[in-house]
């Protein structure tokens, strides 16, 4: 795609990627800069431009807590950050290639579509058109106040970040054909907060018809799983969100929206990283700024939406990882024993390296079912406590996602597939091999970034398989293809999950007695 491409707002010219068959377009504005009076408003269309815009550089990253990791990208931070990036291998606009829209993670407060791990060149080489983008984060994306709700014709506030994602999907709908993409074959995919966003968009009437398939990489969970409330799937109710918004404004010495809009963006950074008011049955807490069930973008929570079948009927692929949400490999026992408590981010789920801690947490989480839990996940020593805790966390995740699939499918027609990622690569992590939160991203994109890490032949093989599954799913809704181990759809009878990474094939979600326990535990919880 060497010739300039016509978008609604003007012509853009991409540059060849390292693999010359793929062209990348970086930093295309998909909305007007959300600054001044447009701060905390639904995104507006971008200003059209004259002539050809060179799309050679990523746009600035959205305001977020600075980190040395982010500094490696060498991108400035600016409130004017609503840009997207496109990778395409199409030679002409006449082609109709399947489209993957990737939503980055980072707890609704960090991240950028310019992350090199999300480089779309490899998947574009496999025939997809890949789109990544920035959306508003933290207070910029998720502030709710009574005054904001009052000025909205929908009486809603707090979902500006989600509205940015929806604006991208509208942009894709109207513009992606010019890049050789098929606007009728769009998949949204994301990891962590990106997966949370995928789940929310799947429930949003505003996103209906804008995508046909969805991929949630950590997590999609059953509506009665308490962990739903602190993971990236967590949402707020308008009253709580507006109260937090009022406190946020007061902290900055302003009481009116007009004054809040006048503040320089540097004054709107930070704030409480964690929402401690949420009861999650454990130490895990969600970030304060996150989506709101506002009655407009999100009409209802999970249980209500699924029970009424109000969600968008799309092909779904969702899964969890072996070493996340507090589960860690056995050989990290000593490391966690000697870990400095100061290095822990507030709100993170605990890793239990003492028997006392494990037993106390079991009583807090399971109440009257705690003894039964401890009989199923027995531990007599500190070291055994870590093993039992990790086993329970993994069972919880697999069972919950499996039950979610059944819950989701009650009123939908499209198949759901679930996975459990288990590949532990030596090239990731500093000291320990583990299938940590987000570790599958390098393999799904097939980039194995950074390129100078010591990836093995096995890593390359796993990346080839994973990216093939994902590309197939985006193209047809079915990850299966020639030469790939068969991945069956999820059914209520099977109660199995597809292991990917460490091995490839269906595995039971849990041993029968443990499975029965988790089902009864979830049944005893409030739907959410």
């Amino acid at each position, binding site marked *: 795609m060497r010739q300039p491409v016509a978008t609604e707002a003007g012509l853009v010219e991409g540059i060849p990627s390292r693999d010359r068959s793929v062209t990348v377009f970086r930093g295309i504005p998909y909305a007007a800069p959300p600054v001044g009076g447009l701060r905390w408003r639904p995104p507006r269309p971008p200003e059209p431009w004259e002539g050809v815009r060179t799309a050679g550089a990523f746009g600035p990253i959205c305001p977020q807590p600075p980190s040395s990791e982010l500094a490696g990208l060498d991108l400035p931070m600016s409130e004017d950050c609503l840009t997207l990036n496109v990778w395409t291998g199409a030679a002409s606009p006449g082609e109709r290639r399947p489209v993957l829209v990737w939503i980055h993670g980072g707890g609704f*407060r960090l*991240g950028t579509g310019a992350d090199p791990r999300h480089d779309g060149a490899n998947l574009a080489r496999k025939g997809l058109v890949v789109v990544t983008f920035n959306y508003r984060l933290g207070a910029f994306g998720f502030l709710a106040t009574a005054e904001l709700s009052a000025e909205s014709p929908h009486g809603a506030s707090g979902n500006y970040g989600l509205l940015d994602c929806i604006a991208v999907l509208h942009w894709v709908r109207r513009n992606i054909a010019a890049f050789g993409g098929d606007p009728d074959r769009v998949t949204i995919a994301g990891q962590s907060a990106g997966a949370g966003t995928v789940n929310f968009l799947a429930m949003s009437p505003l996103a209906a018809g804008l995508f046909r398939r969805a991929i949630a990489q950590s997590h999609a969970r059953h509506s009665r799983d308490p962990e739903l409330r602190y993971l990236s799937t967590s949402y707020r109710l308008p009253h709580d969100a507006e109260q937090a918004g009022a406190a946020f404004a007061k902290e900055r010495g302003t009481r009116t929206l007009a004054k809040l809009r006048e503040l320089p963006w540097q004054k709107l950074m930070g704030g409480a990283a964690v929402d401690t008011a949420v009861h999650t049955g454990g130490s895990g807490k969600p970030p304060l700024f996150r989506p709101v069930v506002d009655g407009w973008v999100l009409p209802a929570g999970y249980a209500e939406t699924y029970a009424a079948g109000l969600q968008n009927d799309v092909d779904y692929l969702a899964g969890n990882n072996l070493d996340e949400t507090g589960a860690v490999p056995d050989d990290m026992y000593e490391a966690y024993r000697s870990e400095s408590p100061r*290095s822990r981010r507030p709100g993170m789920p605990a890793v239990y390296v003492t028997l006392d801690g494990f037993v106390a947490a079991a009583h807090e989480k399971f109440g009257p079912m705690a003894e039964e839990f401890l009989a199923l996940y027995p531990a007599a020593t500190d070291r055994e406590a870590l093993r039992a805790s990790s086993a329970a966390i993994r069972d919880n995740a697999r069972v919950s996602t499996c039950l979610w699939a059944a819950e989701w499918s009650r009123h939908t027609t499209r198949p759901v597939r679930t996975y459990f990622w288990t590949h532990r690569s030596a090239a990731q992590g500093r000291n320990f091999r583990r299938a940590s939160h987000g570790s599958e991203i390098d393999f799904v994109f097939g980039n194995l970034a950074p390129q100078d890490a010591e990836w093995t032949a096995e890593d390359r093989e796993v990346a080839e398989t994973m990216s093939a599954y994902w590309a197939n799913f985006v193209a047809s809704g079915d990850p299966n293809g020639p030469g790939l181990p068969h991945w069956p759809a999820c059914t209520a009878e099977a109660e199995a999950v597809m292991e990917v990474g460490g091995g490839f094939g269906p595995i039971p979600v849990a041993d029968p007695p443990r499975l029965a326990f988790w089902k009864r535990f979830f049944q005893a919880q409030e739907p959410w």
Partner: protein
Amino acid sequence: MIMMDSSEYDDVAEPGRNSRTRQDQAYEGLRSLLLSGSIEPDTRLTEADLTRMFNVSRSTMRAVLVRLVQEGFVTSEVNRGVRTRSFTVEEALDILEARETLESALAGKAAERATDEEIEALRRILDEMVDCKARGDQAAYSQCNRRFHQQVKEAAHQRTLARAYDTLLYPLVMRQYRNLSARHPRGGSLEEHQAILMAIVTRNPDAAVAAMRHHVASARRALLLQTGESTSEQNTDRETT
């Protein structure tokens, strides 16, 4: 590589990786924010904003600011508060002159001491720069450019010079005085890097010193220093040496 997804949100940080103190994290974060050019020169930074931004206590932030004042990243004056650095033309020229001296000396030492692996790494970076230039990928060219200079510094195996080089504030100077309307990469930039590599490969310290001195001086001349005209416009990286 950014790891924010994996080290944040619902995951548990890997022990050892995140064992840096909160003060170190805030220091690194603020330093990188200043280097990224996100805040204009001579902007006032208030302790209240910074403590909120980094979620640390006032005393921790004060300690971070003391470090950054000492290193010259920010200034602290009575009645003016803590501000991002704004360099006068004289200060900028002084820093760039020091860079010419230090970095050419490092290049000379690299010609004497670079290992085969280090030379191979330089070669790979240069190949990538050729590719970036051919594709018109300015952002990737800039990143390679930085890696090239870091690699020369490492290949010099001269710790005292390297430490002095690291304390130079020239990245901030380049930000403040870069010429956003100039062609990028600057004409001759690629060839100058090739000359530096050739001198190192052929183990010719004098030639390496001369090649690096010429390169850094050319980069200086491309800045908007003659008129003292400064630009603080935020743009994606256009800075190249």
